[in-house]
């Protein structure tokens, strides 16, 4: 019996897409293609996009949109909704609507900044681990394993106790902790690309690490990274809000949605929904981002989810 190794990997070309002498038609690229995708987008995706744009608009033009100053005391505390104060006033007599609008700038801004930093750290190290491999990969992976062995919120609480709750510290701590997740993903998808023959071609040509990482691997993992950016934004948003709610995130008097819930929570026991508006704002933005990510994943996975 001269049977050799178990079955070779099934040959993709044997049952793949039609291979004819005629090539598939050229596709459209660039802005026109992007516009087309936008028009073709499902309703949920469009809704998500509109909501996100509204939030961005609010964040940018907060000083113009807000009727009062961010920390300005404008009346008695806990006033009802009125024409002067559409959402009433808070525990210190500040205008709730104004605080909501500035909250968009502060909470979303800090989250966005943190997410960007998370990606710079996580994607760079993940890409490095995948492209170099060997000891570099082993070392980075073991460090990440250990960091991930402590539940994130708990670790964040511990570090915030030690280093204090200033905004730079908050951003840095959350970014470092969340970047472990981005590292894992980047490394995993990067590994799939590194084993491709075209990466070997580049290495055989004599290309340096920079070219391999930046030109061969990175362009091919952009879509999963983009989706991860959306998801990671949501997680970081919820984490920072939770920390603020616990009194350990953005510090007063900065207007922030998580802290606003905590400061005015007492009203809830009187059956008033107003203190929950900031929380609802958080939920709506998170849902919107998730809708966009879903649409994007659906698009790039080639409808793998439902046949």
């Amino acid at each position, binding site marked *: 019996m*001269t049977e050799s190794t178990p079955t070779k990997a099934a040959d993709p070309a044997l049952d793949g897409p039609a291979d004819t002498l005629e090539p598939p038609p050229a596709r459209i690229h660039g802005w026109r293609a992007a516009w087309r995708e936008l028009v073709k987008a499902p309703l949920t995706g469009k809704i998500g996009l509109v909501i996100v744009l509204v939030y961005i608009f609010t964040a940018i033009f907060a000083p113009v949109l807000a009727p009062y100053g961010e920390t300005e005391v404008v009346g008695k505390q806990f006033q009802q909704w009125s024409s002067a104060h559409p959402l009433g006033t808070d525990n210190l007599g500040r205008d709730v609507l104004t605080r909501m609008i500035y909250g968009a700038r502060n909470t979303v801004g800090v989250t966005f900044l943190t997410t960007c930093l998370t990606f710079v750290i996580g994607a760079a190290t993940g890409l490095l681990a995948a492209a170099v491999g060997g000891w570099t990969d082993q070392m980075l992976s073991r460090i990440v394993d250990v960091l991930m062995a402590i539940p994130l919120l708990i670790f964040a609480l511990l570090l915030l106790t030690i280093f204090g709750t200033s905004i730079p510290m908050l951003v840095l701590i959350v970014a470092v902790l969340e970047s472990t997740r981005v590292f894992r993903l980047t490394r995993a998808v990067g590994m799939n690309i590194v084993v491709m023959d075209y990466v070997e071609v580049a290495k055989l040509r004599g290309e340096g690490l920079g070219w391999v990482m930046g030109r061969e691997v990175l362009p091919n993992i952009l879509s999963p990274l983009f989706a991860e950016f959306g998801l990671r934004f949501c997680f970081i948003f919820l984490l920072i809000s939770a920390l603020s709610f616990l009194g350990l995130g953005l510090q007063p008097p900065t207007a922030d949605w998580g802290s606003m819930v905590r400061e005015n929570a007492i009203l809830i026991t009187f059956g008033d929904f107003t203190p929950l508006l900031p929380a609802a704002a958080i939920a709506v933005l998170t849902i919107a981002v998730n809708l966009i990510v879903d649409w994007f994943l659906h698009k790039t996975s080639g409808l793998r989810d439902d046949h």
Partner: protein
Amino acid sequence: MTTNGNSGPAEPLLQIRGLRIEGQSQEIWQEIVKGIDLTLQRGEILGLIGESGAGKSTIGLAALAFARGGCRITGGEVIFDGEDLLKLPERRRRAYRGKRIAYVAQSAAAAFNPAHRLIDQYIETAVTHGVMSEKQARQEAVELYRQLQLPDPETFGQRYPHQVSGGQLQRAMVATAMACKPDLLVFDEPTTALDVTTQIEVLAAIKDTVRKYDTAAIYITHDLAVVAQLADRIMVLRYGELVEEGNTRELLENPRKSYTRKLLAVRGLRKDEERGETSLLTISNISAAYARSAMVLRDVSIRVPEGRTVAVVGESGSGKSTLARVITGLLPPLEGSISLRDQVLPATLSARNKDTLRRVQMIYQLPDTALNPRQRVRDIIGRPLQFYLGLTGRKRRERVKELLEMTELDERYLDRYPAELSGGQKQRVCIARALAAEPDLIICDEVTSALDQLVAEHVLRLLLRLQRELKVSYLFITHDLATVNAIADDVVVMCEGRIVEQGPKTEVFTPPHEDYTQILLDSVPEMDPDWLDRVLEERKTVPAA
């Protein structure tokens, strides 16, 4: 319309009429099977042959009234034993599947459930359909395992799928399909993923079984020589349409359509060998191994003359691809040396300079993974020009166009991404990229085995022409002896990391052979319906080595 016995004296077992199937690609439904008619008598074996995209597997599955995800049956009838299966509800179709029509998949390793023993997966069909008791099914399983010449038939079924080799697993799948003694078996490329020496065993097992139980079968493959061994009748398909249909012998001897003739002639390409005087690449006494594993190459010495082609032949696990990694410096050898002209190459990739790297280029098996999907053709071919030769701007553009012309590609593909090219075109881009470096040696690793046969032939002709014009040498790694015949001057036969035999092509291919070369040569199917029987007969009389 359910019973229609006018077509012949006996009612056919399976009759497919006007079958139409659509497949979804990029959210658009396109017809991939365009009105196929098919008739199969009891006990008859029908071969479905075609290149990829012919729709043959889709038709095979439609015989079980099944369509894969992303496909849908839009029209026609599948009348099995007088009943149109397409009109039946899913619940009643189940009564046919497995019991009266059984399916043998291409990859047995993927089609067996990893969590259950082989015999449990065998008896499940018979018991669920209420054909026999579990006890009886177990006895019959052992009987079938014995008949299919599986080792230790009494205990074979106790194993899990991962504990069994590829060829054995494929035979176990045939046994499983036979559990209910179905009237019809659908074989979907059952030997395509196997080595040639394993393929012949599986083919023999299939042929024996089908004959013994007088089962009708649909045999799907892209290889005309394989189907010729089994089929009574052959249907040639292309783009979901019938090209030609006929009795096996008639079709092979007297094909009517030019497409069929091309398919038949596909293995006929042959290069007249030439002797090479000056050595380009000299590999001396190379031994190599991957970290912490057994030796993959042992004492390998090969000489590649200038402007000539040396083919390295062997089955999976023979070490032929490892050889390529050693030459390119990806895997430094444990012993031995490699020199290009008179210059000894540093063992590791990092120790080689740009010019050394430029002189040895490589082309891969799967052009899909060898081309970066995010780079345009102009950048793929342009990069080596810039990197090695310092060409930029207009000079680089002009040279890229020249290279496209050399590889018979139109200029309008310059700005396309790989996904917008066909398989053959992608491989041409890979060739152009290798040529851009103006190399002395190109290592070709199974460059045609993922392509359809006709496309592969075009690529081989292109490589031959380029060699004549540019005097470049090829080290051609392949498992396919027809490819060797088409392109090689010298041949090296490898088995389990050693060189079994080497020399000029005609010498190696004419007797007397080494034992292994003999087995290898014998196992390559020929376009002769009697080939399999003849070889099996010879092997019985001459005990195998």
